[in-house]
Structure formats: structure tokens, C-alpha cells
């Protein structure tokens, strides 16, 4: 069986006065029904750009997009990139939905939450406004907002941040989508609410058997919910593997750096966190070799100028574990141990 979502060689570039910004460069991954794929990476690594391309939300007159985003639906196969705006629009909200980073500003301030959810439902279902509100009440109840019948008539400003994100989730799921894209859904929330929201997403995934594409820079969140992880750096996927592989056997120096920068409860206190030195490169003039070479601690273990001259390819380093590095997975893991 074909995977539900296939992204192949997706490139998104923005022409600017200074040159072309290659925000996403050759992104490929698959996602199955009921599976969660996490995309992690620092700000500007191309995570959100990739997602907006999947949703077809880029302004086409200002963006150059190539590659393919194929949705294998039961009755049709559709490529988001080559389809018309109207065809993609009909997928949004029905087949694929999205929730965003900042729930404080993602809901329209002038409409009640019930109206907003009902609007999403009535777009794909024939029903009266009252039916829509009834459906909205069910959804609000489902995402765990107490007193749904009363809350459905309230406005976004009457909800807390976590509750608003629940409303966003209710709105995204109202038409039973097959794919949910969650773009940093917990970044703007405090830690206890974060874990509640992630738990809710997990529960909803079971209930609707949907695929989740989770964008985040929080590796703690990833560990909690993801099945597989893509690590992005400077617009490229630098490592892709199952969740355990990433955490226990990272095969790329950037991933190693990310993992070492997380504070750990089981380690000696009073030690400074290890940070990755330097800044990510400008996406306009990417270096000729590996884009991470400049900041890489393990570069000295590679013979010659390989790192600065030849860009490494995404290779399968172990069983369905892909990484972009001139070193082997075993070498990196040994070096990582020493670095600790």
C-alpha cells in the first residue's frame, strides 16, 4: 500500500531583491495513516514553509514551488503542487487541516467560537446554522472544554491560550480530516498546558485515525508523541529516522548538537548546557559544501576539505535511518560519547 502522504523533492524559494531565498530545498518524506511525523529544526530551517506548501497556502505569485506533494486518497490521487488553487482549497479543512503556533491570534476576534467552527463544518456539510452550532458544541465537548453548550457562544477573548488551542483543534477536526498539520501547536503555551494539548492531539489521532505532521523545535514534545522524526537544517532534511533511532543513535552532527543542548534531569547539575556555536548560514548564498560545516564540531575528523567542498547526500546509514554526513553513523556516535 502506498503511504498516505508522499512529499518528493519539494523546493520552495522566495525571490527577493538580494537573490533567491531557498527556504526548503529537496524535501522528501512519506507519512502513513495514523502515524505522527515530527519535523524539528531551528527557526528559519524551513519547517513552516514546508507545511504551508503542503496546505497550498503559499502566495503563488511570490513563491516558486517545485516537486510534488501527493495525497493518496481512497478514490483519487492528487498532487497539491500541480493542482489548481480551487482543487487544493477543497482539500483544506476537509482532507487536511492545520493548527497554528499562536492560538491567541489565530481565531477571528469578532466571531464566536461556535460560529467559527460551524463555518468550517458547513463548508463541507449541508446543514442549517443551528446544526452547525450543534456540531460545534459536540466538537468543543470532545476536545475537553467544559460547559460546551455555554462556551460555544463565547468569543475567543473569553478563552485562555490553552482553551483557544483546543478550539483550534476542534475547528481543524470538525470534518474528520485525514491529515492534521500542527505548526508548533504548543510553543505559545506554558508547560502544563503543552502536555495536555499534546495528549489531546494523541487522543484525537486515535479517534480519527489521522496522520499528524508535527512541526516543533521542542524535542521534549517530539519524544512524547512522534513515531518518526525529520531534522531540518538550512532548508534541507539532514536526518530522518524512527524516534528511538534519533534519540539513541543520532547519525548527524547537528542532531547530536540539538540533543546535547537539552537540559537533563538525570545529569550532574551545575554544568553549563552545550550549545551549537555560530549561526545558521544565509539561505541566499548557501555554502558549496555541507551547510552545517561551519558550525560542525566533528569536521576535523573528516579527511581533507570534504566538508566545505562536497555537500553530503541523504544516505541510508542504518535500516530506514537517513542522514546527511560524510562520517558514518558509528563514527558520529563514538564522537558524541567522547563529547559528553
Amino acid at each position, binding site marked *: 500500500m502506498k503511504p498516505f502522504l508522499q512529499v518528493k523533492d519539494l523546493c520552495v524559494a522566495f525571490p527577493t531583491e538580494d537573490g533567491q531565498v531557498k527556504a526548503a530545498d529537496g524535501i522528501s518524506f512519506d507519512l502513513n495513516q495514523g502515524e505522527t511525523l515530527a519535523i524539528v529544526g531551528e527557526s528559519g530551517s524551513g519547517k513552516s514553509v514546508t507545511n504551508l506548501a503542503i*496546505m497550498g497556502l503559499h502566495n503563488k505569485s511570490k513563491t516558486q514551488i517545485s516537486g510534488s506533494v501527493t495525497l493518496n486518497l481512497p478514490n483519487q490521487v492528487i498532487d497539491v503542487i500541480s493542482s489548481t488553487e480551487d482543487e487544493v482549497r477543497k482539500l*483544506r479543512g476537509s482532507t487536511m487541516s492545520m493548527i497554528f503556533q499562536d492560538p491567541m491570534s489565530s481565531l477571528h*476576534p469578532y*466571531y464566536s467560537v461556535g460560529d467559527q467552527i460551524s*463555518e468550517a463544518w458547513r*463548508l463541507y456539510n449541508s446543514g442549517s446554522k443551528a446544526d452547525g452550532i450543534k456540531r460545534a458544541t459536540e466538537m468543543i465537548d470532545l476536545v475537553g472544554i467544559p460547559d460546551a453548550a455555554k462556551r460555544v457562544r463565547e468569543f475567543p477573548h473569553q478563552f485562555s491560550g490553552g482553551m483557544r488551542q483546543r478550539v483550534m483543534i476542534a475547528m481543524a477536526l470538525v470534518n474528520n480530516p485525514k491529515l492534521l498539520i500542527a505548526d508548533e501547536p504548543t510553543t505559545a503555551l506554558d508547560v502544563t498546558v503543552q502536555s495536555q494539548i499534546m495528549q489531546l492531539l494523541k487522543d484525537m489521532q486515535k479517534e480519527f485515525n489521522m496522520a499528524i505532521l508535527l512541526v516543533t523545535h521542542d524535542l521534549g514534545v517530539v519524544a512524547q508523541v512522534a513515531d518518526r522524526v525529520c531534522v531540518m537544517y538550512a532548508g534541507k532534511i539532514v536526518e530522518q529516522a524512527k524516534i528511538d533511532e534519533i534519540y539513541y543513535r543520532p547519525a548527524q552532527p547537528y542532531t547530536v548538537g540539538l540533543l546535547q543542548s537539552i537540559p537533563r534531569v538525570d545529569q550532574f547539575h551545575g554544568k553549563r548546557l552545550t550549545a551549537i556555536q555560530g549561526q545558521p548560514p544565509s539561505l541566499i548564498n548557501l555554502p558549496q559544501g555541507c551547510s552545517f560545516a561551519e558550525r560542525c564540531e566533528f569536521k576535523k575528523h573528516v579527511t581533507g576539505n570534504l566538508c566545505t567542498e562536497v555537500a553530503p547526500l541523504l544516505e541510508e546509514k542504518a535500516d530506514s535511518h537517513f542522514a546527511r554526513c560524510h562520517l558514518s553513523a558509528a563514527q558520529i556516535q563514538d564522537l558524541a560519547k567522547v563529547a559528553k
Partner: protein
Amino acid sequence: MLKYISRRLSYTIFILILISLVVFLIFALLPADPAALTCGKTCNPQVIEANRHRLGLDVSVWQQWWRFIVGLFQGRTYGEAEALIKCPAPAFGYSFNRHECVTKIIADAFPITLSLAIGAFIMWLSIGISLGVLAARFKGKFVDRASTVFVLIGTSLPTFISGILILLFVVIKFGLVNPLDLGNWANPFTDPLGWLKTFFFPCLTLAFAYAASYTRFTRSNILETSTEDYIRTARAKGLSEKVVLRKHTLRAALAPIVTIAGLDFAGLLGGAIITEGIYNLAGLGRLSIRAVLVDYDLPIILATTLFAATFVVVMNLIVDILYAFIDPRVRVG
């Protein structure tokens, strides 16, 4: 909501009382002496004093103010015996210059000003908003650039020039209105065509400048709103661009226009001095400018100032109440 409205209403009354007091004090401080103005330079002091008494100016400012307030509710009389002048409530004073009660003078001028304000208001809102929406929708295209030219001309051309240009090169050149008929009052309900003849071009003149700034305001508000996160959410829901614009962007972008439009309209109700002058309309604007520059008619100045201030204050109240209906975040308890 009711509590909010009644609280705002009491503030409004308080502010109006304060304004009337301030206006009275300003006129008390003015070097002009209304009693001396009632007769020529050769007037003897006895006549001036007698007139001062008749005008009710021989008491303190506070007492004058109190009489004014009482007069608003009970009407006022000036002079005694055979020379008795009665102004029924609400009495704004008596103009010795025109030998008429000020209330009557204002009641005659107000329909003209109101016609001008309402006509212009409808014109500038419809032109300004639709042009602004079009310009935002087709940003950078021909419509947008054409609207920029319109905005530039409209905001930089003062009314006394645009008004005269329209009068000379449209109204008179094409013989649309006989110059002798300019400013003829016609009742809009019994003679709509005559009303239109008198008011269409003055309204257009007035609307021209306002429409330009409303176009710019609408355009920039829509463009700003369309970058909001909730507009992206609306798109992610699967709404078409049309619905996103109509239902989501416009709703948020046009809300602030209610405030500005309400206050601009209220400002116009005090009289449009220049436009009324150009088109020979006997509205409040011309009334007050004549009272200030030609006749030194203090009762009229006092009344028109208070009148204009009242509109602004009351419209402020209306706008605030309206806004609470438009924006749920403003609603209280």
C-alpha cells in the same frame, strides 16, 4: 450593556455642561462688548447700559450661564413692557442683530447643513470604501495605482479649490444649475429633484476630500488585516478568497471606520464653512462665520459652538455604543 449606556449618558451630560461653561467663560474674556456693539460709535453710555440690561449682560458670568441653562428648558424673555421679546424653550438666546430668537435662526439653517452632511456622508463612504476594497484586492494593479492618484489629488486639493473647480467647470459650464438658483432650499421629501439640484454638487465637493482619505484608510486597513493569523486560519479552513475577504477581512478592517466616520459626520453637522460659502448655502457654517467675522453676534456664536460641540459629544457616545455591538471585546459584563 444598559448599565454601560446609562453611565456613558451621564458622562455625556456632564461634558456638555462643562462645554457650555467653558464657552461662556471664553466669551466673558473676549475684549468685545456685545452691549456696545448694539449701537453705533456715537452711542451714549446710558443707551449702552440700558441695552446691557436688556441683553441680560449686567450680571455675573455665572448668572448669565445659569439663565442660559434655565432658558434652554423654560424659554426666555428680553426687555420689558411693549418691547418684550419672548423666545420659547429651548431658548439659545436672542440676536439683536437679526432681531430673531437664535433657536429660530438655527432651526432654519440646520436642515441645510444636515442635507449637506448626510449627502456627503453617503457619497464618501460608498466611494471611499469601495475604492479602498478594490485597491487592496488588486494591489499593485491598475485600479490600485489609479486610486493612489485619486487619493493624492483628493487629500492635497483643498475644498475651496476643488469646490470652485466643480462649480465653474461642471455646474456652470454644462448649465446643470442656474447660478441664480444656487443655494435654493428644497424639501427632500416633497421636492427630491430640486433638493438634488441644490445639494448634489456641494455634497460631491465635500465628499471628494473625505472619500480620498477613506480610500487610503480602507486600503491600508484591509492589507494590514489580511496578514493577520486569523485570516490564514480562514484560508486553512478551505474558505474561498472571496469569502475570506468579505466575511473575515472586511469585518475586522472596517470596524475602525465606524469610529472615524461617526466623528467626521458629527464634525460636519456643525457646518461646512467653505462648501456652504462656495455654493451659497445658508447653513450653520455660514451662519457662524458671518456671526464671527461680520456681525460680532455673540448669542449666535455661542449657540452654534454649543450646537457643534453637542453633536461631537453625542456622536462619540453613539459610536462607542455601536462599537460595542461590532467588537465583542469591547462589550462589558
